[in-house]
């Protein structure tokens, strides 16, 4: 496909050459062929430090040239290319195609371990979704910093869920599809529960007798999770 294009291009160039059929000297007195005018405005727009008006293009090109017409041709020529001819006010400039803007970044990727606060917050959201900030704070025993939540939003691992039907109608957080993709989960329900974690040796401690009140909580959490997930799946 791209070869086809370049062949066309060459053809066009040849046509241009053929159509000129005038010695170069004569172009001083007669308007250069349109293909030549196109080359000229291409070079001027490329090299100019700012957008150039049609008026200025005409002033800089040999007598008799018609910049406006050449611009139409050049604009067409750049259609679908990596750069485009764009109008800036009453002037013209060559600019990067908008879909390629990402190439104008030199990325230095640095991988850092997610902070403990972020992991815990994320874990609570995953296990208890939809969950309010107050609930997260209750489980973690410390307040949740705005930065932590923002970070998880930035990573697109969490999003807002439905508001809770409790006084104040607080917002809730749920995990996203990106979260599931990243952690290789089909759904948040697939997250192992505490018992399974323990069975897998991820938790080697016995539950202390005093930790009993956690268990009903866990049940609640599981229910809530299901609820949240159904919401997640309904979306």
């Amino acid at each position, binding site marked *: 496909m791209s070869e086809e294009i370049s062949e066309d291009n060459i053809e066009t160039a040849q046509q241009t050459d053929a159509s000129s059929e005038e010695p170069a000297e004569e172009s001083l007195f007669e308007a250069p062929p349109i293909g030549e005018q196109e080359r000229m405005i291409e070079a001027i727009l490329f090299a100019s430090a*700012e957008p150039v008006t049609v008026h200025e293009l005409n002033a800089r090109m040999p007598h008799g040239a018609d910049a406006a017409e050449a611009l139409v041709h050049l604009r067409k020529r750049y259609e679908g290319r990596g750069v485009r001819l764009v109008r800036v006010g009453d002037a013209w400039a060559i600019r*990067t195609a908008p879909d390629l803007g990402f190439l104008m970044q030199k990325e230095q990727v640095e991988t850092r371990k997610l902070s403990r606060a972020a992991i815990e917050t994320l874990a609570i959201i995953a296990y208890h979704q939809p969950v309010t900030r107050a609930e997260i704070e209750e489980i973690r025993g410390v307040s949740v910093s705005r930065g932590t939540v923002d970070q998880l939003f930035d990573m697109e691992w969490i999003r807002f869920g439905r508001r809770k039907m409790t006084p104040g109608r607080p917002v809730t957080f749920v995990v996203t599809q990106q979260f599931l993709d990243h*952690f290789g989960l089909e759904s948040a329900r697939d997250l192992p529960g505490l018992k399974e974690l323990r069975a897998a040796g991820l938790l080697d401690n016995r539950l202390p007798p005093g930790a009993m009140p956690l268990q009903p909580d866990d049940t609640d959490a599981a229910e809530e999770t299901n609820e949240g997930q159904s919401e997640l799946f309904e979306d």
Partner: protein
Amino acid sequence: MTDDFIEQSKRDAVAERLAAEALIVDVDGFEGPLDLLLTLSRTQKVDLRKISILQLARQYLTFVEKAKQLRLELAADYLVMAAWLAFLKSRLLLPPDPEDEGPSGEELAAHLAFQLERLQAMRDAAAKLMARDRLGRDVFARGIPEDVTRTRIVTYSANLLDLMQGYARLRTKDEFRPFVMDRESVFTMEEALDRMRGLIGFAGSWTDILSYLPEGWGADPKRRRSATAATFAASLELAKEGKVEIRQSGTFEPIQLRARERRGP
């Protein structure tokens, strides 16, 4: 024939003097003796490879002579070159001395010819270079370069294990206190010392140190162990300070202590 030769030499000499005079005007314009030689060589109107070094040496010496007549200050390197060329001239004119081990006049002349040719070649190359289509004069770069933003992308990594462990840590908070000592069951030596300092004043007679254990620390074995150890350590400290005496009647017998009587210094 001979006359012709003499005539020719005369004419040459006149031409050389005129040329030298013309060059004198420009003496500051020369980039050293080699440059001057190169300029002089052009008067021979031959290929640099066929140049007569002998004639060139003569031309140069004429130039220097003329400069001296005009009382022109010539830089030292011009004079050094003149001396060298005078030497070369004699070498070229005299038959080679078989005793002499140095390079022959021809070798020296050939090298000078090479130097001139090389300098000329570099000059031609420089001219060609400067005549090329040059950036900013004939050829132009992009007028509106777009900034490449250097972004540092920080990706945070966390795997499922991190997540699960984080959650487990939270839900079993009480179990996960690996580095925090259970202060409730620990009676420190400092605490024991404070306690005993307040009590030994009243103990004039031998008393089992176990009676110094704080209230409520005797029942739980963990607490009892800690309190006993702390009290014992505190007793030793007090003995060291000379405040108490300690005795034990036998192995595993009760350890007893009493306040030491104060003696005057």
